[in-house]
């Protein structure tokens, strides 16, 4: 269940090499690719709280949407610089995470789950009724986005968007990776595994969980900002409970609490949806439902868990 060791392994370059390969091999899929990166970032933020922190939440889309709207409103009202929008979204979502987390992390189990749902619902209600700022159910259209660093303008083919999102994901991945491998990460995993013992050895369990939660919320907010900037649109669907559910599905599909599950899950999920959902959305929902049930019953580790099992078998045969 534990993640990569602190030292970088050669295999960890694979996702980034693949991302560059996609640019050359399938240039028409760049917009979809950018969307995959955004969902990877969102799932990565979820992995930090759900996988490492053991905090089951159904409300993470609140922070994603809050970041999306922060970036959108800032660009419409003041300044369309993408990096400024990104920073503002991270800060806003992080602060919202700190404020809400301080309240909800005092509870556990069903109460906690319920509170996360209630928070998403409240943010959604506010966004849909504050029409002066958010444009209500129509959403913010044609959000202006300046060139990245004043040089790389967003183009029709999605090249800039692709590499912009890739760079942000890379930066955030570096942060999350070093976090989960640090003593901070160990304390977080400890409180997931047995919080009574963590209390007993004097670890500040609540503070650690709150810190992890706020960081994760900031990351989710950045993912939301990326979505606003690459699609030039921020809508109410970024706040819905469906998105939180989808994030959990992608995470468990890839593998929970192993860092790279957040890369595999969204990629497989979004590419499969792109193929299947175009024809019949009913079968897509059915498929994802059946898949979830099967994963929970037979393959708790997700795709990466299955890979682990295969690799171990091969090694056992060899030796």
């Amino acid at each position, binding site marked *: 269940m534990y993640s990569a060791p602190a030292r970088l392994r050669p295999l960890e370059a694979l996702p980034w090499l693949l991302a560059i390969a996609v640019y050359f091999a399938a240039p028409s899929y760049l917009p979809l690719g950018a969307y995959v990166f955004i969902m990877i970032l969102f799932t990565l933020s979820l992995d930090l709280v*759900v996988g490492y922190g053991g905090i*089951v939440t*159904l409300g993470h889309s609140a922070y994603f949407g809050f970041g999306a709207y922060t970036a959108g409103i800032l660009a419409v009202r003041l300044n369309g610089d993408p990096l400024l929008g990104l920073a503002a979204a991270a800060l806003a979502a992080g602060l919202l995470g700190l404020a809400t987390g301080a*309240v909800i992390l*005092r*509870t*556990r*189990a*069903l*109460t906690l*789950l*319920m*509170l996360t*749902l*209630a*928070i998403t*619902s*409240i943010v959604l*209600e*506010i966004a*849909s*009724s504050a029409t002066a700022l958010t444009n209500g159910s129509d959403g913010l259209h044609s959000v202006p986005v300046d060139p990245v660093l004043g040089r790389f303008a967003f183009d029709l083919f999605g090249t800039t968007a692709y590499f912009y999102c890739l760079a942000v994901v890379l930066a955030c991945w570096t942060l999350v990776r070093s976090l989960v491998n640090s003593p901070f990460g160990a304390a977080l995993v400890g409180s997931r595994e047995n919080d009574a013992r963590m209390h007993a050895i004097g670890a500040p369990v609540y503070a650690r969980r709150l810190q992890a939660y706020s960081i994760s919320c900031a990351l989710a907010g950045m993912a939301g900002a990326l979505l606003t900037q690459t699609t030039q649109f921020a809508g109410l669907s970024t706040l819905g*409970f*469906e998105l939180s*559910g989808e994030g*959990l*599905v992608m995470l*468990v599909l890839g593998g*929970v609490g192993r860092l790279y599950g957040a890369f595999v899950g969204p990629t497989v999920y979004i590419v499969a949806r792109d193929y299947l959902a175009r024809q019949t*959305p*009913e*079968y*897509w*929902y*059915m498929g*994802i*439902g*059946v*898949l*979830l*049930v099967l*994963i*929970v*019953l037979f393959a*708790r580790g997700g795709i990466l868990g299955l890979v682990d099992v295969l690799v171990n078998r091969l090694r056992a045969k060899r030796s």
Partner: protein
Amino acid sequence: MEAFLSSLVSVAFHGLAYGMILYAISVGLSVTMGLMGFVNLAHGVFAMAGGYLMITLMLAFGLPWLPALLASCLIVAVFSMLLEKALYSRLYAAGELEQVLFTIGLIFIAVAVARLAYGPNPLAAPLPSYLKGQLSLGGRSFPAYRVAVIATSALLIATLWIGLERTRWGAMVRAAVDNRAMAQSVGIDTARLFTLTFALGSGLAALGGALGADLMAMTPTYPFEQLVYFLIVVAIGGLGSLRGPFVGALLIGIGDTACKYWVPELGAFFVYVATIALLLWKPAGLFGRHV
């Protein structure tokens, strides 16, 4: 003053009808969560199944309203019993995340099935003519359908409370909620008790869904849309109790109706804020003992 009084009566009446439906649906969720510690987000699926089944039985098989209502409730109860034996029972010992994901998976499947069978648009329940009119009580007139909803639910609640307080089965359920290991060791067959209770809870949800089909319209995404409300009722009421969700359902039913009547622009905002405030004050809910 008279206008205010009449709107007050109207809000209380409609809120009561809504609260009764919420209670019928959520009480099963509360009992199964308290009994088995299982986070069953898919509980709304049974309510939806009840509603759709009743409509089908009435339209395709020409059954009258009441028999269709009871039959759909029975079918869903039997079906849920099979589901519990085959799938749910494997996950009682699993973690919270697994249970959440498993039941979200079930919701996805149910949404897909409902869309394939009934299409994406809301379906109205065909009501018999005697439920369509108005009933005058104490100089005011009330819609007959909602009066029937309140009466049926009240009857149901009375039966349920007597069943749980006065019968042997009820004593066994209460014992198992209080202390499962102890109940097992005095010889209660908890596996069988779980199955039966689960079926009862699902059947009640189906009854609530079918009864409320005119208030909460049947759409394929029903289990997702209503989930927040069912969970709120259970969370503020407290797990494993009968009285808790009743108070919770009435609070939410009347509170939600009142907010939507007097301050429609804020929507359900107050309900969520009140829920958060209440859960911070009492994390285990109003009548819950376990956290």
